[in-house]
């Protein structure tokens, strides 16, 4: 019989709600909570362990929590890993996606989870794993578990999952060709689609174009001489030892660096760790990417009021839209906290 390990949060393990969010990882050999329902819905497989972790603990100690959780799985025999369902719980969704990704990388087993479409974990992890479309809240526990279990049964039998539409998971950014001799020929499909479009009826394109998530331009600053300006970059400028270990490509990390007593970013003290361009120009004068020197001059001339105490940096090359969105949101919180009026955002 095939074996499954199931990850759930402190709430569904019956430990408690928000007050217990810092609950540290635990491995249970006696399965509990949603694991019981999952176990029941499996065909030739069983849930052998329930892995529990508080959402708050995971969120604020992602790396340590991941190491602890992976350590608990070490030496266990399992064929598949399930997390959730996580519904709309944002931190639970993040933890489920993150641990699934780590388990898949370390143990090479298939990983499955379930989230509601408003869970931010969907956009962060949908390209890395099967995330099934789930309900808003735990009232949908039974049906969400059923969807996960039916996919698990298929995978464990060695069957391939069908399309995102037929299996009800979020598209993973993989588009493949399907031949179907029962399908209407393209000439009929195209005329039918045109007639619908012309009559204002609903139609379904076979090649959905991703929507540009445009942000309106902020109103102009009327008086720059009273403005506090911050420098933010995706050009990978960091202190020479890259203290936050920002990745050179596909970044998931960002850093903020104190420049309150700097007038200039000097060669040998700062550099770029961006792998997407020839670093020579940036390394010999990091101001080329984070123009602190000229901005200080503006400050002295009174053209601007002041410069934020820190500059903010990450790497743009290969970075997913989901990660960029998360990092941008996190940086924005700090900028607001620092009462920054405007940002010069430099890319490369």
């Amino acid at each position, binding site marked *: 019989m095939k074996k499954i390990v199931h990850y759930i949060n402190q709430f569904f393990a019956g430990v408690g709600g928000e007050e217990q969010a810092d609950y540290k990882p635990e491995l249970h050999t006696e399965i509990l909570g949603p694991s019981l329902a999952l176990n029941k819905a499996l065909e030739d497989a069983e849930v052998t362990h329930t892995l529990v972790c508080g959402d708050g603990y995971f969120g604020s100690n992602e790396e340590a929590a991941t190491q602890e959780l992976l350590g608990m799985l070490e030496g266990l025999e399992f064929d598949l890993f399930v997390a959730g369902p996580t519904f709309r719980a944002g931190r639970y969704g993040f933890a489920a996606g993150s641990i699934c990704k780590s388990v898949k990388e370390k143990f090479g087993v298939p990983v499955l989870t379930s989230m509601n479409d408003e869970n931010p974990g969907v956009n962060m992890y949908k390209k890395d794993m099967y995330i099934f479309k789930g309900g808003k809240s735990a009232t949908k526990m039974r049906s969400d578990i059923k969807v996960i279990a039916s996919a698990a049964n298929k995978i464990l039998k060695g069957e391939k*999952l069908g399309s995102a539409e037929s299996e009800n998971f979020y598209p993973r950014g993989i*588009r493949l060709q399907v031949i179907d001799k029962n399908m209407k020929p393209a000439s009929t499909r195209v005329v039918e689609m045109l007639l619908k479009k012309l009559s204002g009826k609903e139609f379904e394109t076979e090649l959905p174009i991703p929507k540009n998530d445009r942000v309106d331009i902020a109103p102009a600053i009327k008086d720059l001489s009273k403005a506090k300006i911050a420098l933010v970059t995706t050009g990978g400028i960091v202190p020479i030892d890259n203290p936050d270990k920002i990745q050179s490509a596909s970044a998931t990390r960002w850093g903020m660096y104190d420049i309150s007593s700097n007038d200039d970013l000097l060669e040998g003290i700062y550099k770029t760790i961006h792998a997407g361009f020839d670093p020579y120009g940036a390394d010999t004068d990091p101001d080329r990417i984070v123009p602190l020197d000229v901005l200080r001059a503006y400050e002295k001339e009174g053209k601007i009021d002041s410069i934020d105490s820190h500059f903010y940096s990450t790497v743009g090359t290969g970075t997913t839209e989901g990660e960029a969105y998360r990092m941008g949101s996190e940086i924005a919180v700090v900028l607001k906290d620092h009462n920054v009026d405007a940002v010069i955002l430099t890319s490369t």
Partner: protein
Amino acid sequence: MKLEIGNFIVKEVSFGNSTSFQNGVLTINKKEALEHVMEDSHITEADIVIAVPGDKKRIVPVKEAIEARCKIGKNCTFPGVTGDLYQLGEGRTHALKNMSVLAVGKHWGSFGDGLIDMSGPGADYSHYSGLINVCLVADTDEEFERHEQQKKNHALRWGAMRLSEYLAEAVRELEPDEIEDYDLCSITGRDNVKDLHKVVYVIQCQSQMEELGYNDLVYGWDMNKYVPTLMHPNEIIDSAIISGSFMPCSSKWSTYDFQNNPTIKELYKEHGKTLNFLGVITSNLNVSLEQKNRSALFVAQIASTIGADGAILAEEGYGNPDADFIACFDALEDAGVKTVGITNECTGRDGKSQPLVVLSEKADAIVSCGNVSKLIELAPMEEVVGELQSLARDGLSGGWADDEKLGPSVKEDGSIIMENNSMFCGDQVVGWSQKTMKEF
């Protein structure tokens, strides 16, 4: 314009003493047929091989497919190409149906050539697996391009046209099994269509080679030196456009594809019922941005001028031509013409690449006909028509001589691994396609 196509349904093709058609059997006098082919002294050797659906035959490198037809009262089928110019799209044309004439290299392939399996899983990828194919298998003395990846394949393509004209002579004087009527009067002279949607079909024909001789021809004119023109749909299905020899094969539209364009037939079927089929704007595909934009501008202007409120937009290609496709899509939508596109995609072997090189939110309605880069593995076939090694050796768009992980396209036992790119006219954007793309 009123066109009658008289169909002769071919059930069997065999060789015999005289070329004739009787009771569904086309008999070919091979010697006489080959004399017509050999009129071009550049053809050094030639043979005719018949391949029937279900045969354990693999045909490669296929350069062109043509439906054998003759024009009643005229002495050529392809005006401007095989004879003097005359107006197509009216009068009577006789056609040998259920059958195509293929131009097949005896040895040498080129980038735009393709493969056809007559049975097995490979037969799912080409419309031509389901037809009786009269294969002209020949070699030429076109030394200047013998080892070039891009070949004009002039002698072979023109040889196949002559062969198709020769075969169709057998039915010139006969009564067809059935007659299809294509009757569409002038745009302003139509009754009973006033309340219907006015629809135009836009075809972007392949014309991206700046050097002449590789591109689609309209009445013999190279479409690289062309601006979009309004044509009567009858002209297209009456052999006005000849396929070229350039684009990766699954994206290509053969001359047979133009002659039998299913989208034109579908629009004809709906004409007077759900829509008013105004006509076909034949556009092209270009290299420079200015050329792309100029063609898009012409298409949108013609569509507006004739009062179209809807358009179907089809591209004969992928990759760079996606820019022409999206430019034209945007131009039509900006002109207030509601548009549905039809194209294939290139999402890579893993399905993770952006489907078109250029995207636009205005392109909100697209019918998708498959992934050019899908990897296909096929077992050996009992007989090869042409030369199997051409798939690996000659730079066909979906084949390769060697690959670190996959090895060569052609294995020692005759099995093959290739990309869909080289399936002969495989993506059927003209309208046959029963392929689509799904998210996984």
